[in-house]
């Protein structure tokens, strides 16, 4: 890993046709970042979904100022759901530590717990919807309602996607004797990052709805 120490600006101002530069370039290994593609892929996905949520938030701010905006109540259940996500993230930190120490038995056990928490969270969100609909807060009411349902749905879909990856992660540590340590560690790490990301997204969205 000799190369790649140069900043992007430096790279972009190279003159690739010059013999001196060619000598340097010939040693280049071809990678831009010293990172596994999986990790970059995950970042890519997080960037895209961050942009999507940001755009929603921009329109939210734009729409909020009109006078038909009626604030939604926050059912207490939402706080519990938030707590579930916080616990998941916390558990995932423990899983990451365990996998660093090659303690995959523990990691597997706690991964199950993650799955349970995620399903509980989704059920919790559905219950919140039910409450709100019963209380007369329909999607078509104030735009605040619309945003609430859109945000929770999209966040829920992200979590569902995460569960797919969670299945793959569990699969990697399913049979202790078959574990390929490198792959298991890698997958667990990606899964954990994604879970933390979902918590962050939720906190931003929830905070937004609380404080507006």
């Amino acid at each position, binding site marked *: 890993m000799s190369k790649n120490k140069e900043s992007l600006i430096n790279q972009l101002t190279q003159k690739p046709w010059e013999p001196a530069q060619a000598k340097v*370039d010939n040693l280049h290994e071809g990678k831009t970042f010293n990172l596994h593609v999986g990790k970059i892929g995950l970042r890519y996905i997080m960037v895209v979904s961050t942009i999507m949520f940001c755009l929603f938030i921009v329109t939210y701010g734009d729409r909020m100022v009109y006078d038909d905006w009626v604030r939604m109540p926050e059912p207490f259940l939402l706080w519990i759901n938030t707590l579930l996500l916080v616990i998941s993230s916390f558990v995932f930190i423990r899983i990451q530590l365990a996998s660093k120490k090659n303690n995959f038995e523990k990691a597997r056990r706690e991964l199950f717990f993650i799955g349970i928490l995620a399903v509980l969270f989704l059920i919790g969100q559905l219950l919140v919807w039910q409450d709100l609909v019963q209380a007369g807060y329909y999607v078509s009411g104030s735009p605040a309602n619309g945003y609430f349902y859109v945000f929770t749905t999209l966040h829920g879909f992200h979590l569902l996607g995460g569960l797919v990856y969670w299945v793959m992660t569990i699969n990697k540590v399913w049979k202790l004797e078959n574990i390929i340590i490198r792959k298991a560690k890698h997958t667990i790490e990606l899964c954990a990052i994604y879970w933390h990301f979902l918590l962050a997204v939720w906190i931003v969205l929830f905070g937004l709805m609380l404080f507006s």
Partner: protein
Amino acid sequence: MAADSYDDVAKNKDSIPELEVAPQDLYHAKSFWTKYIFCQDAKVIGIQYALTAAAIGMVGLVSSWLMRMQIAFPGVIPMDPAAYYQLVTMHGMIMVVYLLTALFLGGFGNYLIPLMVGARDMVFPYVNMISFWVFFLAVVILAASYFVPGGPTGAGWTLYPPQAITSGTPGGDGLGIVLMLVSLAVFVIGFTMGGLNYVITILQARTRGMTLMRLPLTVWGIFTATVLALFAFPALFVAGIMMTLDNMLGTSFFMPAIVEFGERLSYDGGSPILFQHLFWFFGHPEVYIVALPAFGIVSDLISVHARKNIFGYRMMVWAIVIIGALSFVVWAHHMYVAGMNPWFGFFFATTTLIIAIPTAIKVYNWVLTLWRGNIKLTIPMLFSIAFIITFVNGGLTGLFLGNVAVDVPLSDTYFVVAHFHMVMGIAPVLVILGSIYHWFPLITGRFLNEKLGRIHFWVTFIGSYSIYFPMHYLGFMGVTRRYFEVFEGDNFTYSITGINQFITVAALITGAAQFVFFYNIITSSKFGKKAGKNPWKACSLEWQTADVPPTHGNFGKELPVVYRWAYDYSVPGADQDYITQDTPPSDVANARAEQT
């Protein structure tokens, strides 16, 4: 890609040590299904993308004939206004999104990226395969909208609310608009998966010696376009979701209180302009998503066939990147007369005219590549020359429309139609055609028929220029676009009937010429002249594969190693007028580049 992200990562502590980086497992097809249908080889996926895009593109082409018939010879093909507006809408949407975007990024991107950067395949072949099938699903949903009651949406490709979802618009109160929005959302999802591959393959899977600045401009164009799409498509997605909710569940994100045909609808308080901002935040970069790959590809075509290095390679790269970045701060130039705060006009006119500068630099450098070249007038070169003329024309009329005060009289007239067809319709299509002539020998091992090719070129270029050049002048007269029927008003200085008929005839002939092309493709892929290896004597890696056409894994036993940039043409002192990228210095001892 921001500079700081690179720095971040270079210092990143959590990066995996080299040993832990998994070598890429190569995928192997096991049956007919995995070889041709659910294939994970990027080359096959590229061709699948291209064929699907071309198939739905035919619908777009035929729509344009029908529209032109209605404009010039009303009554010959019976049609009501609703049908006309459905044709306009589907034509526009298909051409921009499902044909050009899919063809450039899905088609050319998949086929060329791994070959040009020296990789065996994309980094996530499985995701890549899924990406195609999701795109296919989007096309199917789009096509399905022709068969629902009320037909496809006729909202215009811009889909502006409120009219997109009200009953005065074809498909507005039925399933047409719903399917359109769903199809777009699916397209965005599929595209995001594809883009994931293009970006990361270019960043991480290049072969030894392939620095960023040794990449061919084709790769730079596709790369930047994909990054733009990454930022732009979420806006379309968001707008689509919110509009679907307005339509299906009665929310009022974009819908203000309105009275439609005497009836008060239940919406209240939404902002139609907000939709336009979201749409054009996607829509303007979309123009460059189509244009940048064309810029990149045409640079390579010109360089190869003029036997000369591309002039000002660094400027070309910077221009692509700068244009890409600026394209996110010009979107509201589509909204000068849309009723937004008029003071935005100053800002957006300035940014828009600034973007003309890097664009002009690109044009100069293409022309300066021809200067003192050794120009082979092959068919790809002819198309490239035609591209330059068309693009210069369309780019210059962009200076009219971008200059806010000039846009006031011209917006929403045929001047706009002429401008955007020149710049993002015809120009990229010319590049696509040229590049098919260029890479066909690589894909099939055979040349396309030269005679038919020349006929195709002459008719296509002269035809399309005669369609769109006169159209500008209709715009000056004030002929408005999206008119089912333009009445000869007393405000026109001259009859528009004759010129419209001329344009229509030109359009029909130009369209028909494309069938010569399809015929050429079909027959030549079987009976064409054998091309052999590297028939154009090009430097870049895609021509240096072990087999022609390249087989699975692209490069035989060992990946190539790159020793030079992609443009070592006519190097002084070298025996031949090209040195391929993978030629080691020792093989070309007396070439100037190795002397110092």
